[in-house]
């Protein structure tokens, strides 16, 4: 499009700001999750995490201000205030605080997304103003006085002047350590001036493994000019001798400034053992530093362009191959042809390797989606007052970045559904002999070229009779239709079907399983649902690892060609007309004793129908237990295909998941396996 060449410096600067801010907000989300987890587990927030959050908010405020995004800057400013009080120990974390922080970060993210748009979004501005108001009210609440008085600080056995040299933050950490009953130690070390940074770094890491380093101050009195002396103030539950041993220091270098208060206090203080917490914080910090220096952020569009280039390269290679075929066919040029063929094969291997590399770059772990689910459930727990545990497994499973983004909505929808509709109230659960706390599990596993996602709940399950009654009431099926339980549950995926007549705040417009299926189908994936009344529901999604390339089966019907994602194909077989039998007005294919509903692709799509006496092929499409036989005229082999959306005013193409381009520059439609299976099942019903 035209805009690219006209990109101004202003645009570029804005893009840089957006990508920096995205990074900051992403880190803040991670830190907030850690904070909320700690709070939920009854632990106090890790100071390193709170401090990092504060720094992120501070940086965000600064750069938003620089770029003239006043509202974003204001929001960040309030965030910074809340976090500053928290890190200074002037406030403690409570659920309201977590929610406010959560909302601020979400809102800032939303505001950031809107920056690309031309005009300001007024409703967003209003929302930000409202939130800022709530934060201000929250901050105005009375705060308890510090637990540790100045007198207590003065009583510490620390070198003179040290207390005065502490920053406000360090002092607050000092007070909080004393309040929690941890011991305080003064550590004095002398290091070579030329390499003191290294030595100090090592010592800092070692201290963080067994406690917290509160302050590092240079001090006078080094033995020679080439050396420098430091006084470190550390909090730890270890005794002085033990600490010295762990830090590999002379015992004389470590002095007790304040004795730890014994075990009982540690429990009620509730911060947990530092050995469990601090190393993680330290590792996290190191990891994030590494990733900052070793990674670049790339616009996904650039990767798409790169992918297209690779595709072009592959087509050039195919042209070269055609030339090889021509050359080798003629005796006089066969030798050159063979030489060229060798080069062409080498090129093919390299193009394939390049394709694999580009695909690999697009892969991101599911973690970011899972984090969103965690936040949603946390929020729902507060809003609905239901006790539900969310278990996430397989966060490290990698998928194409685009798929991961498109997965957010369907997954949120399923989790909200489970929370809102499936999980019963605590009383209801107790009556049914279940644990009062509900459970929602989301699990991702990679299987070859697919990723399987399972969303499982231990709620009330789906009442097939109620589904059936509603389908009859809505005129979707005849009152006397004979449906298996499986087929009945399939009805839930029909557009607009909802088992609840009321639309709730939480799940929005109805249950919306049709939307989930449509979203997943657009990604070349499948959705299946199983449910046992009283025990729960399982929704399984199967998705290709990458959108960029799927394995497709090419089939021909009448004059047209279509691609079918191989993930939905169970098998293919040649069928003669006599293999298809009519029974009770519907066509069935006898597949090793099992009767499969038949769907004739040419007829289904209104193409010129193939003569009935001709030999055809059956493509057995499967999804969960549902299977149909799709009859086509030709099987044209397998191919890697890039599924793309069909752009244009026609929004829904029933039975079509997208389109792809196969070397010939001609578009080929990619069939939507779930929709076809549904149609096959319905056809059967209509004729029954």
């Amino acid at each position, binding site marked *: 499009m035209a805009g690219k060449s006209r990109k101004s410096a202003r645009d570029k600067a804005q893009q840089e700001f957006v990508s920096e801010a995205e990074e900051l907000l992403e880190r803040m989300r991670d830190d907030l999750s850690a904070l909320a987890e700690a709070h939920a587990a009854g632990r106090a927030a890790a100071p390193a995490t709170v401090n990092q959050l504060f720094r992120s908010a501070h940086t965000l405020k600064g750069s938003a201000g620089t770029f003239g995004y006043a509202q974003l800057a204001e929001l960040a400013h309030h965030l910074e205030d809340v976090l500053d009080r928290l890190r200074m120990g002037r406030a403690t974390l409570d659920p309201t605080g977590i929610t406010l922080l959560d909302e601020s970060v979400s809102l800032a993210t939303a505001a950031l997304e809107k920056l690309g748009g031309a005009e300001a979004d007024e409703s967003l501005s209003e929302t930000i103003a409202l939130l800022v108001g709530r934060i201000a009210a929250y901050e105005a609440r009375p705060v308890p006085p510090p637990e540790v008085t100045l007198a207590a600080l003065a009583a510490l056995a620390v070198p003179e002047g040290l207390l005065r040299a502490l920053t406000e933050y360090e002092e607050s950490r000092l007070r909080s350590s004393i309040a929690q009953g941890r011991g305080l130690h003064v550590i004095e070390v002398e290091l070579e001036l030329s390499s003191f940074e290294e030595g100090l770094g090592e010592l800092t890491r070692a201290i963080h493994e067994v406690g917290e380093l509160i302050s590092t101050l240079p001090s006078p009195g080094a033995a020679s000019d080439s050396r420098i002396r430091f006084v470190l103030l550390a909090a730890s539950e270890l005794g002085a001798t033990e600490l010295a041993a762990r830090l590999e220091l002379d015992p004389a270098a470590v002095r007790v400034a304040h004795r730890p208060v014994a075990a009982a206090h540690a429990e009620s203080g509730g911060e947990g053992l530092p050995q469990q917490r601090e190393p993680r914080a330290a590792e996290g910090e190191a990891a994030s530093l590494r990733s900052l220096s070793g990674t670049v952020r790339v616009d996904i569009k650039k990767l798409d362009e790169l992918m297209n280039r690779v595709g072009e390269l592959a087509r050039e290679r195919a042209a070269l191959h055609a030339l090889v075929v021509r050359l080798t066919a003629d005796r006089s040029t066969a030798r050159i042809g063979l030489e060229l063929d060798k080069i062409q094969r080498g090129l093919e291997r390299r193009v394939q390797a390049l394709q694999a590399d580009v695909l690999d770059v697009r892969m991101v772990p599911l973690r970011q989606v899972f984090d969103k689910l965690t936040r949603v459930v946390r929020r729902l727990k507060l809003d609905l007052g239901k006790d539900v545990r969310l278990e996430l497994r397989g966060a490290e499973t990698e998928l194409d970045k685009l798929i991961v983004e498109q997965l957010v909505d369907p997954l949120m929808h399923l989790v909200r559904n489970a929370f809102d509709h499936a999980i019963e109230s605590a009383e209801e659960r107790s009556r049914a002999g279940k644990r009062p706390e509900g459970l929602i599990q989301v699990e991702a596993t990679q299987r070859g070229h697919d990723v399987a996602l399972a969303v499982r709940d231990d709620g009330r399950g789906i009442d097939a009779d109620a589904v059936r009654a509603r389908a009859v009431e809505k005129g979707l099926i005849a009152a006397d239709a004979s449906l298996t339980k499986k087929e009945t549950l399939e009805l839930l995926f029909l557009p607009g079907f909802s088992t609840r007549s009321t639309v709730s705040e939480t799940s929005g417009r109805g249950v919306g399983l049709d939307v989930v299926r449509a979203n997943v189908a657009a990604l070349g994936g499948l959705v299946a649902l199983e449910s046992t009344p009283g025990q729960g529901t399982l929704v399984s999604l199967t998705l290709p690892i990458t959108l960029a390339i799927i394995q497709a089966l090419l089939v021909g019907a009448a004059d047209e060609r279509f691609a079918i994602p191989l993930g939905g194909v169970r098998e293919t077989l040649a069928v003669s007309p006599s293999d298809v039998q009519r029974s009770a007005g519907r066509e069935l294919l006898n597949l090793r004793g099992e009767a499969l509903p038949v769907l004739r692709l040419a007829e289904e799509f209104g193409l010129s129908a193939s003569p009935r006496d001709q030999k055809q092929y059956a493509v057995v499409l499967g999804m969960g237990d549902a299977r149909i036989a799709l009859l086509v005229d030709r099987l044209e082999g397998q191919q890697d295909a890039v599924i793309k959306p069909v*752009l244009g005013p026609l929004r829904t193409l029933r039975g079509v998941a997208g389109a792809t381009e196969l070397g010939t520059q001609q*578009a080929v439609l990619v069939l939507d396996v779930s929709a076809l299976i549904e149609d096959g099942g319905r056809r059967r019903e209509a004729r029954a």
Partner: protein
Amino acid sequence: VSSQVAGEGWDVLARAAARAREAREESAVLRELLCVEVGGEPYALPIERVREIVRMRPLTRVPRAPALVLGVISLRGEILQVLDLRRALGAAALPPTRRSRIVVLHGEAGDVAGWLVDAVSEVLRVPEAELLPPPGVAGELVTAICVRGERFVSLLEPDRMQSLVAA
């Protein structure tokens, strides 16, 4: 006295300059229109909505789609729906010729679609004032007409065109 004359002289100059500027501004309100031929009649499309013009290429039919949708094409890695402007304007369907072109339009919301026209003829620059409201009989797709020589050119509204399908 001389200074007064100078003052008047400046006044005259300033007024002349202002008139010239006004005239320029007036003539600057030009609409640029892409003229296309459909069913033997001239139509115009606002050029700011035209993304590109491409030659006819292999169409892939879309089953179960409204007749207005001729099919989809692959255009530099994008898959685009191609719609029949002849049919949209009530002209009889004809197979494409060598002069046929696909005009790719983008809507307000950035959505795109290809429209098959019989030919692309020229780009017109028409002063806004010469765009007249269409007579009552004009189709709902026409927002204005203008006179070019002996012919009436009808200006089409892309969003209304696209909504023919979406409805």
